Structure formats: structure tokens, C-alpha cells
């Protein structure tokens, strides 16, 4: 599914990824953990094509398609979704309008027919109910005046409606209380499928109690320095990142 080989990237003059390699097979959930400043958010932006994040070396492929040669919106149409740590507010654009416009832009880019308004509304209603969101919230401008928890639910709702093949969750648990964390995690878990993979980026182990990873990787100083099974998350929680930070 996702294949990263010797990825080097910089922001301005500063090199942040320094030879990162990672394989996430189809159907698996991998966690990337690491101390602050290790390059976790940079990894998510490099993969999704944010301007200003320059790849200087290496390769990133999704099912054999070179991501690095594509625009951000083309990568989205390939099925790549980033759940933002801090979702943006879009004044004046109702959430429903935004998501439907995005969905149809993706479908057009893939050469598929656009989804009709009634079909879309039906799906949006069902997804909102699953996430225990008031449907009226979807008529309001996207994320404007929403709480942190509401924004994260809106991210998961978009994820469900856009049904990407590969999802990156960047610190999805930040700003969530336990109840919201459970609802959001259930929403994410419902999207697990044999042909879909996820990269869960997190500083704390807490989220991984809810979204159980198949593999855990430690990112320190721009590289994956250790990988292991789900038990590794608990070990990191207990012992901290110090030994990896030193090893890097």
C-alpha cells in the first residue's frame, strides 16, 4: 500500500526527515510515535504535498503511484487523506457544501460520475448519526466556532464520506476528552478494511488503546529508529523516548 524509501525533506533550510523508510501493507494500521520535534507532522505534510515542504531525496508511493510528483489535490484523489491535528475553519462555506464539492472534485479527477445531492445527503445523514453529530452542524460553515472535539469529529465524518484508501491521523487525540475520544476512535475503527490502511501519528499511547495498531514505529530525528508490535507502545509509555532520542 504505502511505501516510503529513504525520504529526506526540508522546510526552508532545515532538514527534518533524514532518510525515513516505512512500509504499510494493505489493511494494516501502523502507529508512528516519537518525541516532539522528531518530524511527525512534517511526515504527514510531506506525504500530502503541503507547499513549503521540499523532498530532497527518496521516494513515496501509494500502490505504486509516485505521490511526490502529484499536487496535493491529486494525491487526495488517489485516496490519501490527512486528518489534521488542527482542522482549519472555512468561513462562509457550509460543511455539507464543502464535503460534497471535495468528493465530486475527487470523483471527477478519477474519471467517475459525480454523486447526486440526494445520494450525498443520505450518506451524510447516516455518517453524522454514527458519529453522534447533530445534522444541523453540517449546515454551518465548516469548523467555524466548533470546539476541538467537534472539529475532530468533523474530520472523521469527512474521512467516512470521502472514503480514502490511505488515512493519516495526525495527533487525532489532542484536545479530546475520553467520551469524544471513544466516539472518534469508533468512527475510525469502522473504516478499517482489508483494502484500506492507516498511519496513526501520536505522541501518547492513549489513542492506541482505542485504535489498536498492527505495528508501532518510533520516529526520532527524522528517521524510523525502531519498529515492533503493539506492545511497543506500552513500553514507550513506560520508558519514554529517551533511549531512542539518544540512539538517533
Amino acid at each position, binding site marked *: 500500500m504505502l511505501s516510503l524509501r529513504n525520504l529526506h525533506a526540508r522546510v526552508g533550510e532545515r532538514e527534518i526527515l533524514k532518510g525515513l523508510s516505512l512500509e504499510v501493507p494493505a489493511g494494516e494500521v501502523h502507529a508512528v510515535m516519537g518525541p516532539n520535534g522528531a518530524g511527525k507532522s512534517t511526515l504527514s505534510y510531506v506525504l500530502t504535498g503541503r507547499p513549503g515542504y521540499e523532498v530532497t531525496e527518496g521516494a513515496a508511493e501509494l500502490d505504486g503511484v509516485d505521490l511526490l510528483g502529484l499536487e*496535493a489535490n491529486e494525491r487526495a484523489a488517489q485516496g490519501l487523506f490527512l486528518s489534521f491535528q488542527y482542522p482549519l475553519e472555512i468561513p462562509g462555506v457550509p460543511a455539507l457544501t464543502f464535503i460534497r464539492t471535495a468528493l465530486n472534485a475527487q470523483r471527477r479527477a478519477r474519471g467517475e460520475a459525480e454523486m447526486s445531492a440526494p445520494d450525498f445527503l443520505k450518506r451524510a445523514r447516516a455518517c453524522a448519526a454514527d458519529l453522534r453529530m447533530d445534522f444541523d452542524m453540517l449546515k454551518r460553515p465548516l469548523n467555524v466556532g466548533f470546539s476541538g472535539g467537534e472539529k475532530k469529529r468533523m474530520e472523521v465524518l469527512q474521512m467516512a464520506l470521502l472514503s480514502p484508501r490511505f488515512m493519516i491521523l495526525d495527533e487525532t487525540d489532542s484536545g479530546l476528552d475520553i467520551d469524544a475520544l471513544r466516539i472518534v476512535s469508533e468512527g475510525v475503527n469502522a473504516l478499517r478494511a482489508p483494502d484500506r490502511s492507516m498511519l496513526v501519528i501520536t505522541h501518547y499511547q492513549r489513542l492506541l488503546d482505542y485504535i489498536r495498531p498492527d505495528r508501532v514505529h518510533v520516529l526520532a530525528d527524522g528517521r524510523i529508529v525502531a519498529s515492533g508490535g503493539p506492545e511497543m507502545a506500552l513500553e514507550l509509555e513506560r520508558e519514554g523516548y529517551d533511549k531512542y532520542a539518544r540512539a538517533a
Partner: protein
Amino acid sequence: MNLDEAIRLRDPTRLPSRRDEDWRWTDLRGLLRTLPEPSQPLPTDAIGPGPFDGLAGEVLIVANGSGPEEIRIGEGETRTLVLRHISRGDGAHTSRLRIDVGPSARLTLLESHEGGGAGLSLLGVDLQLGADSACERLVVADMDPDAVAVVELDARLAAGAGLSQTLLTTGARRQRFETRVRHPGQGAQVRLDGVYVLRERRHADLTSSVRHEGPGGRTDQLARGMVDDQARAVFQGRIIVQEGADGTDARMAHNALILSDRAEVDARPELEIYADDVACAHGATVGALDDEVLFYMRQRGLPEGEARSLLVASFLGEVIDRVGSPEAAERMRSWLQARIGAGD
């Protein structure tokens, strides 16, 4: 300085110039070394469809300056009029239309400015609003990129009258909409809104002055626009609250989006207050589209052009939300949408 005389006497020295304080950003003298010949008469039978077609039974046409000179709306009458200003060719012309709205009458004026050719025009409306009458003036202007035009409204309201105006324009080589209102207070209400969408080297100037002459009046003004390429927008809004106009409530906002390094916005909001117990506010912002928001939208699959258009349309569309006539508002929304999308 007198534009009307300049055109009639073909005397460029009478054109408004940068030395006239109110015209410093819309200099005509420096632009026109000589004045064009008077425009040829324009037959009205060959004129194509207009932007407000079908919304009113009555269509008035002012073609190269020729058309009706006076309209009267009788006491208590309700009317919707389409007024089309059509200019063709490279000549110069002026027109002045007087509209009298009787007491308790209601007028919806759907006005368009449709251009073609590098002419010079001065088009004016004198609007008299009787007691408790109401007028909504909705204007869309699509002029020739080479046109030079000044469109004026002089409005005088009686007590209890309401004037609402929404101007949409794509500018011209040099273009100015000037609105002057004499506001009696005493329950009278004024809304003066505008939107400009300017590309290439187009210029639009929204200038207004509202003079509150009596107590308890309201004025609400919202102007928004976007400038791209080397376009230039001018916003000058003046609200004067005279001595005795106590309890006036006046709000003015101008928000501009600059989409290119070479585009320019010049804004001058002015409040002059000589009365007591007055609530006045003005806000002005000039900014670019937020790169983070654009990336977020693109991450969800929107191509950059579509993301930009969506942001610009929602930003400008808030002005149309304030239009009172729903059918005209829909027409204006699509008109605007077509012009926002045009550059992408």
C-alpha cells in the same frame, strides 16, 4: 472640476484630477488628454438580452445617453423597473434620470450597465424618496475594459424612507460609482453595499457620502471585493453626522482580498460626527487568501482554482445575502459566480 461640463464642452481641463482630493485615486484628467466626440445615437432594437430580463414588466433603456428623463412612482404604488444603461462605441455621453418615489410607495430598481467600446460616460440618477417609501436599487455593471465611466446617484430621503443599494461591478479602464445620500434620520434607513471583482488592469471606485441631517437615522454599509492581476480598487466611504442628528447609528465595513502582488486597494473610510449619542463603527481589512486554508481544501481534493473560487464566492456572497428581493438576489449570485470563476 465638473465632469458634465468637461464632456459637453469637450474640455479636458475640467475633468476631475488627482488634485481634487476626492478623485486622487481615480484621476481622469491624467488619463484623457483629449475628450472624445459625442456618442452616436444608438438604436435600441438591436440590443440583446440583459442581466435582469424577466424580473420586471417595465424595461427602460438609456442608450448612449438617450432615454427617459423622469419616472414617477405614485403614492402607495409598488413597482419593479429594469433600467439598462447601454453604451457602445468610442464617443462621450451623459444622461440624467430623475426618479420620484411618492409617499409609502415601493420601488425595486434593477439597473445594469452594459458596455462596449472605449467611450466616456457620466450617468446619473436623482432619486427622491417620499415619506415612508422604500427603494431597493440593485446594480450590475459589466463595462468594456476600455471604458471610462462615472455613475452617480443623488438620493434625498424623507422621514421614514428606506434606501437599499447593492452594486456589483467588474470595473472598467477607469470607473467610479458615486453615491450621495441626504439622510433625514427620523426613522429613515440606508443600506449601501457593493462588490467589486477586478482583474487585468481594471479599475473600480466605490465612493459614497451619507449626510445624517436629523436624529435617529441608521446607515449600514458593507463593501467587499477582490482584486487580481494589476487591477485597482478604490473605496471611499464618508458618513457625516451633522449637529442635531443625535442617536444616529452608522456602520461601515470594507473588506478586500488581494490575489496578486501587483493589484492594489486604496481605502478611505471617514466618519465626521458633530452630534451626541451616536453609535458609529467602521472596519476595514485588506488581505490575501489564507494559505493554510487553501492547503486544507486541496488536501480534501479541491483543485487550487476551485478552492480559491469557493473562498472568494463565500466571502463576496455575504453581501448578496443582504439583498431584499430574492429573485434578483439569485440572479446577482449567479452573475457574481460566473465572474469569480472566469479567471481560473
